[in-house]
């Protein structure tokens, strides 16, 4: 075994500092200028023990990349990641493999993330075996226990993924992530592909498991209604940057960033009496992450933009546990 520095118990489970992931694209043997996509561009945040931190944003904002870079499933371009005080970037490949037990991910698409040629038992046993969980009998017992934990019958161990519905497959994906008793779980749009009645079941399962197993969730989603139900704190991401961070109730009660406010007002409300309400619509299209606007990245779509927004890029400024990156936050 490779000696692994022991993680320490602390209030902050995972933190990032100026985390950046840039992709170079364009230059190929067909020619063309090389361009840089700033998928994640200087993200700093702390995720606390046993909380659900939701990361919201629209497609292309970098939320999935951030989730993957955080776990070093992709290498960051620069910046730091600390897991319970351990510098993750400094860990060797082998040391990372040991830590992966504690750092897990549940993917969006329950159809694509399970190997169709493996029985459920093999799918669940694989992570156990690779981390030296125990004897074959112990592994079998753990697989049965895992299925039970996510509300599926043990008889399903011999079945293949195609024999399950989307909701059941997502339960299997969750069981696999929990196999080695993780500490920190990234859920990347984990309920987005599910029907509403099934989505509620899976969210309840995630809630129960968090209580039972003291899990910390980093919950990536585009769905603000799910965020309000499920998250303790929220980070709003726009074009590679965090533009607002706060507790769920603070942010929903009074968004400070115009983007957060516009995102919220765009969510259709399941109440026909509210259909006549004022709905500020965001104009235009999201700028390309390859060709970012000058100044504040949101100024081209912001109804409140002034001259300074076109030239000066606002930093994320913290104030009493809340943070916003805007020259003119909405409460002032």
């Amino acid at each position: 075994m490779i000696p692994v520095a022991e993680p320490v118990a602390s209030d902050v489970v995972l933190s990032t500092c100026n985390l950046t992931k840039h992709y170079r694209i364009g230059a190929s043997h067909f020619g063309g200028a090389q361009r840089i996509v700033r998928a994640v561009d200087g993200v700093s945040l702390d995720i606390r023990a046993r909380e659900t931190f939701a990361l919201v944003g629209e497609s292309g904002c970098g939320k999935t990349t951030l989730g993957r870079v955080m776990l070093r499933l992709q290498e960051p371009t620069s910046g730091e990641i600390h897991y319970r005080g351990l510098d993750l970037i400094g860990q060797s490949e082998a040391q990372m493999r040991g830590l992966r037990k504690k750092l897990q991910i549940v993917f969006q698409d329950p159809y694509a993330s399970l190997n169709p040629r493996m029985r459920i038992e093999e799918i669940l046993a694989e992570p156990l075996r690779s981390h030296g969980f125990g004897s074959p009998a112990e592994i079998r017992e753990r697989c049965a226990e895992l299925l039970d934990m996510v509300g599926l019958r043990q008889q399903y161990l011999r079945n293949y993924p195609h024999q399950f519905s989307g909701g059941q497959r997502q339960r299997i994906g969750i069981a696999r992530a929990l196999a080695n008793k993780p500490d920190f779980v990234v859920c990347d749009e984990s309920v987005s592909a599910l029907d509403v009645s099934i989505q509620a079941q899976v969210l309840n399962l995630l809630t129960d498991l968090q209580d039972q197993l003291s899990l910390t969730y980093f919950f990536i989603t585009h769905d603000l209604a799910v965020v309000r139900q499920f998250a303790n704190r929220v980070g709003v991401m726009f074009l590679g940057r965090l533009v607002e961070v706060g507790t769920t109730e603070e942010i929903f009660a009074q968004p400070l960033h115009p983007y957060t406010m516009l995102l919220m007002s765009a969510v259709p409300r399941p109440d026909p009496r509210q259909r006549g309400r004022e709905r500020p619509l965001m104009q235009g299209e999201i700028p390309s992450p390859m060709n970012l606007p000058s100044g504040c990245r949101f100024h081209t779509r912001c109804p409140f933009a002034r001259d300074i927004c076109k030239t000066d890029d606002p930093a994320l400024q913290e104030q009493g546990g809340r943070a916003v990156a805007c020259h003119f936050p909405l409460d002032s």
Partner: protein
Amino acid sequence: MTSASDNIISVRGLTTEFHGGRGDVRVLDNVSFDVGRGKIVGLVGESGSGKSMTALSLMGLVPQPQGQVTAQSILLDGKDISKLGAAEMRGIRGRDIAMVFQEPMTSLNPVRKVWEQVGEPLAIHKGLGRKAIRARVLEMFEMVGIPEPETRLDAYPHQLSGGLRQRAMIAMGLICEPKLLIADEPTTALDVTTQAQILQLMREMRDRVGTSIIMITHDLGIIAEMCDQVNVMYAGQMVEQADVFQLFENPSHPYTRGLLASIPRATEPPASRRMPSIPGMVPNLAKLPQGCRFSPRCAEVMPICRQTAPQLAGVGDGHAARCWLHTPQSALPQEETP
């Protein structure tokens, strides 16, 4: 109830079956509904409920010969189209009934310029020449709010964003000024801010062009924002039909009630950490439960529900539900004694 002439389409007894190696599966069972002139009517349900299959059946797009569509009648503006052949349906598709699909990237041909595709219905149904078509597509692009419409005419689909592609699809759907536009999850692939723009556009188009719309969605928020009438589908059947206000304020089928309870809401703090949810899952259409199809998941199930399937029956002004709860105890069919 409204008279037939107030309806742009009036569907009665629409039934769609698939014949395959593993036997016959009835994916739509005796579906009836109306769409009023200039109205937006919702079809809502989960995967496998039959909402998209309803659209494909109306459009004559169910794959043949495995699929078989029958109906007592489908009156489109008073004319029965349920017995028309494939060639006659081609004359109606795109002209009288048009459809907007979920994924604009896969429903546009990637190697043809956008204007040629958007204008294709004009070539087919109106026999217009290229110049006239191009001019009309430009008008449509302006109407659906595509910025710099002139330069977009010659774009290929991949050069447009998801939102612009869906605007182009709506332009194509409306270019022949159809009587009915069927929109099948038109915003599901889009971001929420783009979705709000497209929904706004569809409302404007209804108001300006007067096109009636069937809105197919799994999202009760979109139903509440857009629709006048709502049809809730479950396992191939209509389970509740109501005016949108009735449906949200007085849901009469336990399935509708369960759905409304299990959607998280962005506008209010959660009532509790765990959410109300509907247990179990949608039944396999090849192995339907006896009696009511929702009975294995129903919180209010009664012995009769597991025995005899209820019919869709009126529960109030223009409001119908397929549920025994609304039949007085004395009028329930006698239970069979085993």
